[in-house]
C-alpha cells in the first residue's frame, strides 16, 4: 500500500508527523517558559510591594518615639502614625491606584478593614501551626472568575511591637492607640501582609500566544507541505517524468527522443547517461537497420539474379531448343517419308524450308552470343574514323526500308544538315542503328518508324521511335532490356542479345543508350548518344582498347 504511493506523498507522510510533533514540543516548552516568566514577574512585583510595606511598617515602628514625642516639650502624644495605620493607608492607596490589592490582615484584627477573607484565614491558621514559616504562594480566582496570584508574608512580633501588642501590665491595659494589648510574646504570629496580584492578563497573553504559535504551526506545516510538493515537482517529478516519457517513446520506437534536463544534480546525471544510452541505442539500431536493409537489398539482388538466371534459361532454351526440335522433327519425318518411298514435293519443300530456316536461326543465335561474348570481353578492336553520322543513318534506313515495307510500315528520317563529324567505328555504330531499326520493325504492326538525329551540347543523339507494342517494364526496370538474353516476351524470336550488344558498343564509344515508353501498346523510343570529339583527342575507352591489344 505505502510502496504504491507517489514519491511526494511518501515524503510528506514522513515530514508532516515529524513537523507536528517537533512543533508541539517546542511550542509547549515556549508557552510553559512564557507562563513561568509572566508568573515570575507578577511574583517579583508582589514581593516588592510586600517588602516595601514591611519596610515602611518596620521603619514606622522604629520611629514611634520620634513621631509621638514633641521635640520641644518632650510630651508624648499619639500621632496616629503607627505601622498598622500607615500600612493600612499606604495599602489603600496602592490598591486604588494599581491592579494589585495589598492589605494587612490578622485572625485577631483590630481594624475591621483588616478582616481576613476565607483564603487568608486558612493561610493564617496554617502559619500558626508551623513555626517560622516563610512566605506562602497560592493561586485562585476572584469573584469575576479572573485568575489571581496570592502572596502571604507572615508578620511576627518583634521588639518594637511589644509596646502595643505585648503583655498588658494589668487586665484590660490599653496601648497608646486606645486598643487593649493582646499579650503577644516575641516571635508570635501577629498577622500577615496579603498581596493579591492580578494574573488574568497572564492567561490572556498565554492564550493569545498559543493561538499565534498554533497559527504559525499550521501555516508553516502547510508551507512545508506545499514547498515539498513544489520542490519535488520541480526537481524530482518533472525530470523524472521527462525521463519516463523518453523511455516510453524509445520503447515505442521513437529512437530520436532525448531527455531535456539540464540541471547538474543527480537527475541531470541520470538524464545525461540516459541520453548517452539512447544515442548508443539509436546508433546501434540504425546500424542494425542499415545492415538489415543491406541484407534485404542483397537478398533482393540475389532473388533478382535468380529470376534473371531463370529467364535466361527460359529464353536460351527457347532460342536453342525450339529450332533444334524443329530440325530434328523435320529430319525424322522426311527420313520416314523417304523410307516409305513417298514422294510428296510439297512436303519435301516444307521440310527443306524448315531445316534451312532453323539452321539460319541457330547460326544467328550462336553468332550473336559469340559476338556479345567477344564484345564484352573487351578484345573487340574498334576501328575508329571520323564520319558524318547522317550518312551512316541514311544507308541503314535504306537497307531496312524493304523489310519495313513488307509489314506495311514507313520509315521517316529527320536528319539535319551540317552536324559535326563523330569519331566512331563504322561497323559498330551501323550495327547499333540497324539493330534499333530492326527491333522497331519487329515490334510494330502498323504505323511508322521515325529516325532522328540532333546535337545536344557536346553530343549527338540518335533516336528511333516506333508506334509498336511498347514496353511493359517500369522506368526503373527498363535497364533490363539491355541485359543479356532478356526478352520481355518469351516467345519472340531472337536471342535477346541485340540490345545488349548495342549497349556494349555505345558505351565503348563513351555514349549512353536508353529506352522510353509510356507502357504497353504506347510505342517506344530508343535513344543513344555519341560524344563529339576531335581526332586529336581520342576518347579514353579507345586508348584502353588499343592498349589491351
Amino acid at each position, binding site marked *: 500500500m505505502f510502496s504504491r504511493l507517489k514519491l511526494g506523498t511518501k515524503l510528506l507522510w514522513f515530514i508532516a508527523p515529524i513537523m507536528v510533533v517537533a512543533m508541539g514540543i517546542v511550542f509547549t516548552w515556549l508557552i510553559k517558559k512564557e507562563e513561568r516568566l509572566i508568573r515570575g514577574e507578577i511574583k517579583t512585583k508582589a514581593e516588592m510591594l510586600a517588602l516595601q510595606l514591611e519596610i515602611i511598617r518596620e521603619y514606622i515602628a522604629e520611629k514611634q518615639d520620634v513621631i509621638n514625642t514633641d521635640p520641644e516639650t518632650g510630651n508624648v502624644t499619639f500621632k496616629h502614625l503607627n505601622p498598622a495605620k500607615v500600612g493600612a493607608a499606604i495599602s489603600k492607596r496602592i490598591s486604588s491606584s494599581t491592579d494589585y490589592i495589598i492589605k494587612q490582615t490578622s485572625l485577631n484584627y483590630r481594624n475591621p478593614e483588616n478582616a481576613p477573607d476565607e483564603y487568608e484565614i486558612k493561610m493564617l491558621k496554617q502559619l500558626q501551626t508551623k513555626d517560622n514559616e516563610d512566605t506562602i504562594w497560592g493561586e485562585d480566582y476572584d469573584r469575576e472568575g479572573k485568575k489571581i496570584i496570592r502572596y502571604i508574608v507572615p508578620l511576627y512580633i518583634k521588639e518594637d511591637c511589644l509596646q502595643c501588642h505585648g503583655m498588658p501590665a494589668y487586665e484590660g491595659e490599653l496601648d497608646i492607640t486606645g486598643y487593649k494589648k493582646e499579650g503577644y510574646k516575641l516571635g508570635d504570629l501577629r498577622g500577615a501582609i496579603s498581596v493579591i496580584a492580578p494574573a488574568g492578563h497572564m492567561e490572556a497573553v498565554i492564550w493569545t500566544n498559543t493561538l499565534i504559535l498554533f497559527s504559525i504551526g499550521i501555516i508553516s506545516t502547510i508551507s512545508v507541505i506545499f514547498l515539498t510538493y513544489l520542490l519535488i515537482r520541480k526537481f524530482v517529478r518533472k525530470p523524472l517524468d521527462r525521463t519516463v516519457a523518453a523511455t516510453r517513446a524509445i520503447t515505442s520506437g521513437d529512437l530520436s527522443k532525448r531527455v531535456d534536463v539540464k540541471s547538474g544534480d543527480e537527475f541531470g546525471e541520470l538524464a545525461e547517461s540516459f541520453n548517452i544510452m539512447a544515442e548508443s541505442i539509436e546508433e546501434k539500431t540504425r546500424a542494425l537497420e542499415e545492415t538489415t536493409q543491406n541484407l534485404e537489398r542483397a537478398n533482393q539482388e540475389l532473388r533478382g539474379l535468380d529470376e534473371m538466371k531463370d529467364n535466361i534459361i527460359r529464353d536460351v532454351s*527457347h532460342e536453342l531448343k525450339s529450332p533444334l526440335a*524443329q530440325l530434328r522433327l523435320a529430319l*525424322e*519425318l522426311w527420313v520416314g517419308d523417304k523410307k516409305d518411298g513417298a514422294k510428296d514435293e510439297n512436303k519435301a519443300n516444307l521440310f527443306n524450308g*524448315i531445316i534451312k530456316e532453323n539452321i539460319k536461326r541457330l547460326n544467328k543465335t550462336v553468332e550473336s552470343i559469340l559476338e556479345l561474348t567477344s564484345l564484352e570481353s573487351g578484345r573487340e578492336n574498334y576501328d575508329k574514323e571520323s564520319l558524318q553520322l547522317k550518312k551512316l543513318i541514311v544507308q541503314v534506313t535504306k537497307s531496312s526500308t524493304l523489310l519495313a515495307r513488307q509489314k506495311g510500315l514507313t520509315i521517316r528520317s529527320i536528319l539535319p544538315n551540317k552536324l559535326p563529324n563523330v569519331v566512331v567505328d563504322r561497323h559498330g555504330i551501323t550495327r547499333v542503328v540497324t539493330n534499333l531499326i530492326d527491333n522497331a520493325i519487329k515490334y510494330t504492326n502498323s504505323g511508322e518508324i521515325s529516325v532522328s538525329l540532333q546535337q545536344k551540347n557536346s553530343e549527338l543523339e540518335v533516336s528511333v521511335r516506333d508506334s509498336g507494342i511498347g514496353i511493359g517494364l517500369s522506368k526503373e526496370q527498363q535497364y533490363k532490356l539491355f541485359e543479356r538474353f532478356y526478352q520481355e516476351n518469351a516467345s519472340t524470336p531472337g536471342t535477346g542479345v541485340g540490345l545488349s550488344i548495342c549497349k556494349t558498343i555505345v558505351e565503348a564509344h563513351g555514349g549512353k543508350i536508353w529506352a522510353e515508353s509510356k507502357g504497353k501498346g504506347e510505342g517506344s523510343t530508343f535513344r543513344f548518344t555519341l560524344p563529339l570529339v576531335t581526332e586529336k583527342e581520342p576518347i579514353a575507352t579507345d586508348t584502353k582498347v588499343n592498349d589491351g591489344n
Partner: protein
Amino acid sequence: MIVEDEKAFHDLYSVMFEGKGYDIICAYDGDEAMAKLEEDKPDVIILDMLLDMVTGDTFFLYLKGMPEYADIPVLIISALSEKQYKNLKKIDPNLVYIEKSYLTKERLLEELDKILIS
C-alpha cells in the same frame, strides 16, 4: 487443338497427324485458343508454354478453372524442362508433358492414343 506460336511446328504436327483422322484446330496464342474453344470443344489440347500475350500456363489455369473445359486432357509440349511444370501437375495430375528436345512422331502419337482411349 494445337496451341503453338511457331508456324513451323503447326506444319510439322499436321504432317505427323496425316491420315490419322484427327480434326485439327490451330491457335497461335492463349487468347486465340480461348476464342476457338468456345466454337468447338476439342478432345485433347496440345499446349506450348512460351506464347505471346496470354502464355501457356495462364491459358492452362483458365482451362482448369472453367467447369465445362476442366475435363479436357492437356498435353504440354514445350522447350522448357519438365521440372518447371510441377505446379501445373498439382492442379491436374493427368497432365502429360513432353519436352521439345525429346519430341518424336512415335512418342506424340503414343501419348495421344493413351489420352484418347482413357
